[in-house]
Structures are given as C-alpha cells and as structure tokens.
C-alpha cells in the first residue's frame, strides 16, 4: 500500500506491527494483545493525520496513481455500462469515457474524465486531459440523454484540458465554451462529482450541474498550484504555498457555496477501499437522483441557472 508524504511518521509503527504478526506466526506466540494495542494506536494516529490535512496533502492524494479512476467507480456503481464512442466529427478521445448504464432500474448517461492506473494506461488516456473531440463526445452524449430523458452523471478527474497544438487548432476554447452553455440548459437532471482533480475549465466543462459534489480529498481549482505559483509568485516551486492560498479543497469550496456536498472517503483515502467509496457514492446518487427526477424541468433549469448566477463577490 502506497505511503503518502504525511503518513511517513506512521511507517515505523506499521513495520513493528507487521514484525510482531510475523513473530506470532513463526514462533507460535500469543501476541494478540500487543498487536491489538499497536493497531489501535496506529488507527488513532491515522485519524489525527487525516483530520489535519492541508491543501498540498490533498493535492498529493488527488493525484495518486493508485487513486480510483472513473471506470473503477462506474463498474461498481452502475450495471450494464455500455460505452459509446466518438464525437462524430473528428475522433475518439480516450480521456473521456461515456455511455449508457443502469442505475437501480433506470437508464442513465454516465460521462467521465478518465485517467490511467499505470503509465501505459495514462498514455492511452492522455493522463485524463481531454482534447476538443473529448468535450464534443461528452456534449453528444449529453444531448442524447436529453432526448431520451436520461439523467446525466459526470465524473470529473482531470489535470486540465489538453494544451497541445492539435487541441488549439481544433478549438479547445470553443469546445469548453459550448459545453458550458449547453449544459446550463440541458433538459434533464445533471449531477457532477469531482473524484480527483478538478482542473479548471477542463473540469468545469462537465460540472455545470444541478448538484456538484466533491470527494473528501478531491481538489477543484482555477489552475494547478504549480501554474498559479509560476504566474503569481514567479516560482513554480512554491506550489505548496500556492495550494494553500488558492483555497482548492472540498472544505473550502463548500464553505464558499460553490459545491453542494462532500462525500467522505474511507480513512486513508478512497484508494484504501474503493468498494466502500463506491457504496457511499451510490447511496448519495440514489437520494439525489430520486429527488431530481421528480422535479419539473422548468424549475430544475431555473435553480441550475441561479446556482451559478449567484457566485461572485462584488462591491457596488
């Protein structure tokens, strides 16, 4: 199991526990009591550590290669997921996964930003950074969902929209803008969940929703802390400082009224227990979808408009 930077102080205790366990087995000794005591101590240390995470700690959790990706959740939460491909104009973007699934007996459209779980996968998925054709595929599937009155669930996990030459040539700006506009008036319930990194406009293009949630250790930002540091501090190595100044954690965003819900992660992060995390997300979806489906569409759209309309702090 991977150790995060802020978990290093617990390594020694963990090794001791493993040592004792091995000793108990090899020498057939009864060390139950001692092992139990140490495990309780470790658990409390972990609880304490996870209560006091700063923004940079969260960034390291959100960016973990081991962190569950969209497909991990899709396969656990939904049934009969049928993946659909292509934007019908240019190509198939593997950084976006989308299709139709069953959720407690109803059909839903699921669209997700997909990272890889290892280097090979990451290259295939372009590290979860979509090209314009990815956003256009997402839009096509959203409009399809609207036509057939299927709710849309978006899973957001991207460092940002891809900034390659081809992306620029094919109108990355236009693709994001169009999605923002179309999503704002999509005549079907939309729920977006930031499961890892919510990288700027590239994330927002799939997060104009009736409800926007974040997993407990996910981040959502205008820019990466590295980018922010290089622009405003003229020094990319001050990313840690930037992360804290930028207010990018789920806790910050719910305080600001920008997101609607935080879904607690298992102690140690979602990667320590993806099944438990999936169950939790599923429960939340059940509650919300049940409610949103019953809402008249006009009322839903008005609320969605004002959800974003009210965001802003000004002095007149």
């Amino acid at each position, binding site marked *: 199991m991977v150790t995060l930077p802020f978990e290093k102080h617990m390594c020694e205790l963990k090794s001791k526990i493993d040592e004792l366990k091995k000793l108990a087995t090899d020498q057939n000794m009864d060390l139950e009591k001692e092992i139990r005591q140490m495990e309780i101590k470790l658990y409390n240390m972990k609880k304490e550590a996870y209560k006091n995470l700063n923004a940079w700690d969260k960034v390291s959790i959100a960016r973990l290669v081991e962190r569950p990706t969209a497909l991990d959740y899709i396969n656990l939460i939904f049934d009969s997921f049928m993946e659909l491909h292509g934007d019908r104009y240019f190509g198939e973007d593997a950084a976006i996964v989308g299709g139709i699934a069953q959720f407690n007996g109803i059909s839903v459209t699921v669209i997700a930003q997909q990272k890889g779980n290892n280097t090979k996968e990451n290259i295939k998925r372009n590290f979860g950074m979509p090209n314009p054709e990815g956003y256009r595929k997402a839009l096509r599937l959203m409009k399809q969902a609207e036509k057939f009155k299927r709710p849309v669930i978006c899973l957001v996990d991207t460092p940002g929209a891809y900034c390659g030459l081809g992306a*620029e040539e094919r109108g*990355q700006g236009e693709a994001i*803008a169009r999605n923002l506009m179309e999503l704002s*008036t999509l005549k079907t319930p939309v729920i977006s969940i930031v499961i890892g990194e919510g990288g700027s406009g590239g994330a927002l293009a799939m997060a104009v929703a009736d409800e926007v949630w974040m997993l407990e250790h996910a981040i959502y930002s205008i*820019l990466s802390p590295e980018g922010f540091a290089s*622009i405003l501090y003229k020094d990319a190595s001050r990313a840690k400082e930037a992360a804290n100044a930028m207010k990018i954690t789920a806790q910050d*965003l719910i305080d*600001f009224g920008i997101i609607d819900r935080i879904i607690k992660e298992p102690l140690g992060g979602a990667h320590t227990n993806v099944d438990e995390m999936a169950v939790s997300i599923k429960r939340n979806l059940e509650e919300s979808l049940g409610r949103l489906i019953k809402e008249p569409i006009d009322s839903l759209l008005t609320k969605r408009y004002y959800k974003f309309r009210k965001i*802003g702090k*000004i002095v007149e």
Partner: protein
Amino acid sequence: MFEFRSIFKKSKYMEVKNSENENGEKKPTIPSGMWVKCETCGKILYNKDLESSVMTCDNCRTHFRIGSRERINYTIDTGTFIEHDEFMISENPIDFEGYIDKLQSMRDKTLLNEAVITGEGKINGQDTIIAVMDSNFMMGSMGCVVGEKITRAIERATEAKKPIIIFTASGGARMQEGIFSLMQMAKTSAAIARHNQKGCLYITVLTDPTTGGVTASFAMLGDIILAEPNALIGFAGKRVIEQTLNQQLPEGFQRAEFLLQKGFIDKIVDRKVMKDTLTEILKIHS
C-alpha cells in the same frame, strides 16, 4: 497556464492621456507634437493621422491596442452611451494577500474601476447593449466583477430583446479570485444560453489578446464572431503549448487569420470599418 508578459508587449500599446471636455466626459487626447514609430513596419505615424485611422498603422494595418473608453468612442454614436454598473469593484473572495492593494493601484493607474465597461448606446442610430473589456486593468483578467457586469449586460439585452456586442480583451481568468473566477465562465455562458433561447443577437468582437477562460466561455459563443486583424486569440498560452510539444509552432499560430482558416471565426474586420460592419449586422437582425 499563461505567461502574461510575453503577450503584453508594451511597445505595441499607445498610451493616450484622458482629459475632460466641457461636458465632463473623458476624452482621449494625444499630446501635440508627438509621433510614434510603428513596431511592425517602422513607419513614422503622426498623432493626427493615428487618431483618424482609429489607432492603426496606415501602412501595414497593425492595430494598436486601445482602451475601453476609446473603443466605445469609436463604436458608439457620440452622446448616446449610457454606462451601467460603473462603480462596481472587486472584493477579495479567497482572501489573497496583496490583492486589495493591487486593485487600488490599478484603479489609480488606469482610471478604470475594472477590466470591463458595460452599457447601452446607439450604433448609427440602432440600439444595442455593449460590453468592452480593457487589457490595461490587470491584463483584462476576468474575476467576479467582470463576470457580473458581463452577465448583467447580457441579461439586460435579453430582457429588452436587444442585441449585445462584446469586445473581448483578456489574459484569461483572474488568478487572485481563484475558483470564483472559474465560475464566471459558467455564469456568463449560461446567460448567453438564455439570450439565445429568446432569439436575441450576440456579436463577439475578438481583440488582441483574447485568451484563457474568456476564450473558453463567452468569447466563443457569439452568433457572429468578428476579430481584428492579427489579434492573438487562443485558449492555452503559447509557451505552455511549446513546452508540451517540445517543438516550434506554425507561423501565425493563434492569430485571427489562423483561427479563420481553422473555422472558428466568421470574419476579420479592420477597425476602420468595424462600426460600419456592426451597423450592417445590426440592420440585418432588426
């Protein structure tokens, strides 16, 4: 995400002082006896000529960057402009150190309250709502105030069933307002969606530079998208793209002509005929 300094080359910008005329309106004046040299072609440009050619070089057609007040003077019929929300200023939503001071110094330096002026006026007698961004104020970056002013302008236009014209000029989203700036992209785009549903016209005029979060929101959503010649228009910063690719970018990359070729803008319009072009478009849709 974007290296601002590389695109905001001071040499291309004409510094024009403001003075007040009898009505107390701010009027751009050019110090007498002065001339500039066009950075592109080297031609000497005398002030009178520069002003009469709306701050463009008559020789090579280089368009100098201009501020929002000048733009409004060139576009809106004299005496018909009514400004809206002029006293709106920014707060410090993510409590960013030094931001409030920076805002004050910007206001002192530019005599603007923010990076966009919005209002209503006539263009050759036709009513329109107008928003003009200004790259002098914090590089035209979009924070809560720009987002709010533009959203209100769009909503006013929708309500009154009037067209809206937005002149864009921006280095992107305002970093100092963090996630709040990002959300302005959604807010403005949603307002345009409603404007569209009412069958109302939205003309975008992309000016140099238009980048980042502004490109990825309202700038690329016009019914008709015009651009000034050679304007820098893009999403990601040139340097970031070069680093990603580790190779040189094609000639004219992210310039208006390039975007035209790639199919993303409707028309490149020289500033000298911009007002006439807007007049024609408004007439068609009236």
